């Protein structure tokens, strides 16, 4: 892979919430880079802190949240330090955001067209007619047929998939460099989801966008991501290229995640992850995943594992990778599944 320029870099980010009953440490030291034209996926369960990460990048953390430590470097600035006025120049203009629920992201009593032109006119200072022309072009670009007529319609007149297209059009109106997609297709049906994902991919190629893609669906990750960060309890436990994480997973949580979902071939009993994610109010000692981890070592309960580098791009935080740790193999089920994946590829190669 050719060397690309890093445009956003998150370093040792720590975010906590002051809540009733204590401080919730939602993000506990997250670092990752985003390169130009690449898609980084953040995978994790609900409550793993993946959405909080993106909210910190966008500067839209709720009032009871605080960034305790760390930096988010973007274009020579530290997004954790700049004030609201400066953020206005970045948020929505240079970093776009697509939310999960397209209905609540749109103003229900404002025509679709005006919602798009509002962005265009505010940011580019162009005439009404010109803005309308550009808005219709944008709507066509995101695959809305008969855009000129639909320009004057309200959100309720659109289906879920169409609404998400409009949200994407609005996000693209200011030609951002970075697009953050926070579970953009969870509210949609599979067939519509496939169309939206294809759309995001084609726009990415066209505009050389960098995308941070948040999801819990591993199938979507496989389709979208160049690099993957697996998050658990506010930390990135494994990170690598899509191939590395799927084919040579190193962290027991990634193993568990990959083998807990049935694929099209699986018949054997699923390897469920026992227990539930940890309570983030209680300070976590050692590895957060240890209580649910059948491979946990004694040290996992005592000390937080450091990040071990496997290759230039692949790293994982688990004591299993320590030179003096006992050799552990991934579960049999998962190894078989990875074999199947490789076989499937060769089947694709021939046809």
């Amino acid at each position: 892979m050719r060397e690309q320029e890093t445009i956003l870099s998150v370093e040792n980010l720590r975010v906590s919430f002051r809540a009733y009953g204590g401080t919730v440490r939602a993000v506990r030291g997250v670092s990752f880079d985003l390169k130009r034209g690449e898609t980084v996926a953040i995978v994790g369960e609900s409550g793993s802190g993946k959405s909080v990460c993106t909210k910190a990048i966008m500067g839209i953390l709720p009032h009871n949240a605080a960034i305790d430590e760390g930096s988010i470097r973007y274009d020579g600035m530290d997004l954790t330090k700049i004030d609201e006025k400066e953020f206005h120049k970045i948020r929505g203009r240079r970093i776009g955001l697509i939310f999960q629920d397209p209905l609540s992201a749109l103003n229900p009593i404002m025509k679709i067209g005006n919602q798009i032109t509002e962005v265009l006119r505010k940011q580019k200072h162009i005439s009404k007619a010109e803005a309308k022309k550009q808005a219709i072009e944008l709507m066509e670009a995101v695959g809305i047929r008969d855009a000129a007529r639909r320009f004057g319609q309200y959100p309720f007149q659109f289906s879920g998939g169409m609404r998400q297209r409009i949200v994407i059009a609005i996000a693209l109106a200011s030609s951002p460099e970075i697009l953050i997609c926070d579970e953009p297709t969870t509210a949609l049906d599979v067939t519509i989801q496939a169309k939206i994902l294809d759309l995001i991919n084609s726009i990415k190629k066209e505009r050389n966008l960098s995308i941070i893609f948040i999801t819990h669906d591993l199938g979507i990750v496989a389709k979208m991501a160049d690099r993957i960060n697996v998050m658990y309890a506010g930390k990135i436990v494994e990170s690598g290229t899509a191939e590395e994480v799927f084919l040579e997973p190193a962290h027991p949580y990634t193993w568990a995640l990959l083998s807990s979902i049935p694929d099209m071939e699986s018949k054997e009993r699923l390897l469920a992850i026992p227990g539930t994610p940890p309570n983030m109010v209680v300070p976590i000692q050692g590895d957060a995943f240890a209580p649910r981890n059948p491979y946990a070592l004694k040290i996992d309960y005592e000390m937080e594992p450091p990040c071990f580098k496997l290759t230039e791009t692949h790293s994982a935080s688990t004591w299993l990778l320590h030179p003096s740790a006992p050799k552990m193999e991934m579960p049999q089920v998962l190894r078989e599944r990875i074999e199947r994946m490789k076989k499937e590829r060769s089947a694709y190669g021939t046809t």
Partner: protein
Amino acid sequence: MVQPNPPVLEVSGLSMHFTSGRGKKKTTLKAVDQVSFSIGHAETFGLVGESGCGKTTCGRTIIRLYNPTAGKIMVKGRDLSGKLNKEERRFLTDNVAMIFQDPIESLNPRMTIEEIVGEGLTVKGKMNRAEVRRRVYETLDKVGLTQEHATRYPHEFSGGQRQRVGIARALINQPSLIIADEPVSALDVSIQAQVINLLNDLKRDLGLSILFIAHDLSVVKYFSDKIGVMYFGKMVELAEGEELYKNPMHPYTRSLLSAVPRPNPLTERFRVRVNYDPEAEHDYTSEQPRMAQLSPGHFVWCSPSEQQRYESMMRQ
């Protein structure tokens, strides 16, 4: 006509039409239209389709939350369509139970787990409290909860545990059929597997038949013996799970299968999606479509000429 070993559930020509408006404005929505299938003992039938295709309505009509417009519902060989008298309704609720999608919404927050789970027994009024309690404990044990949980309230549980409570509530009457309406879609990935495994164990241990309604095809495939694909109120394809995935015949099934993202980065990026446009695909002006059997156990909703085409495709 009573067969020696009738299927647990047999649905034929089931239709559920909703009407709205009056006079000229009257419109009919065919939420479920002429759906037929049967579920045998200890069998799982998966019902898939997009939102709004009528799969939930289908499940709810079977348990008679709605009164079907047409069609026959047979439970254990007994006809339960039309207006039910008290005894018939009792027979239905004894034999069929339901698990709902949202484990938070479907549990009354002001009732303890014991009350929620035991309610099915209490309303029948045939058991005293000690007996009900004993049964509640037994059932909680079956779904992986303990006696201590019985006195707690729903908010004290996590999502996965709440869904276990929902399952316990469905099991308390020892039904032969459970209608599970998206039982795992509201749960986290790591919890989903726990609930799926639990349902699988129950199916094996208790000989339960399950009507599994979901939109996640890989889960349905994993879990079901037979699968029915629904599209706009119609059952467009019905086959054994393996067969359906290997030989999808109806264009909608193909489109649906191609749209499911698979967790394999090596192939997922290159996979081609099939589009389904019913108007371009089917010409039903001269021929009427009906359910046709292509190979044993594999049914497709198609017209005679389409059937010939599908059959020749199958032979290849």
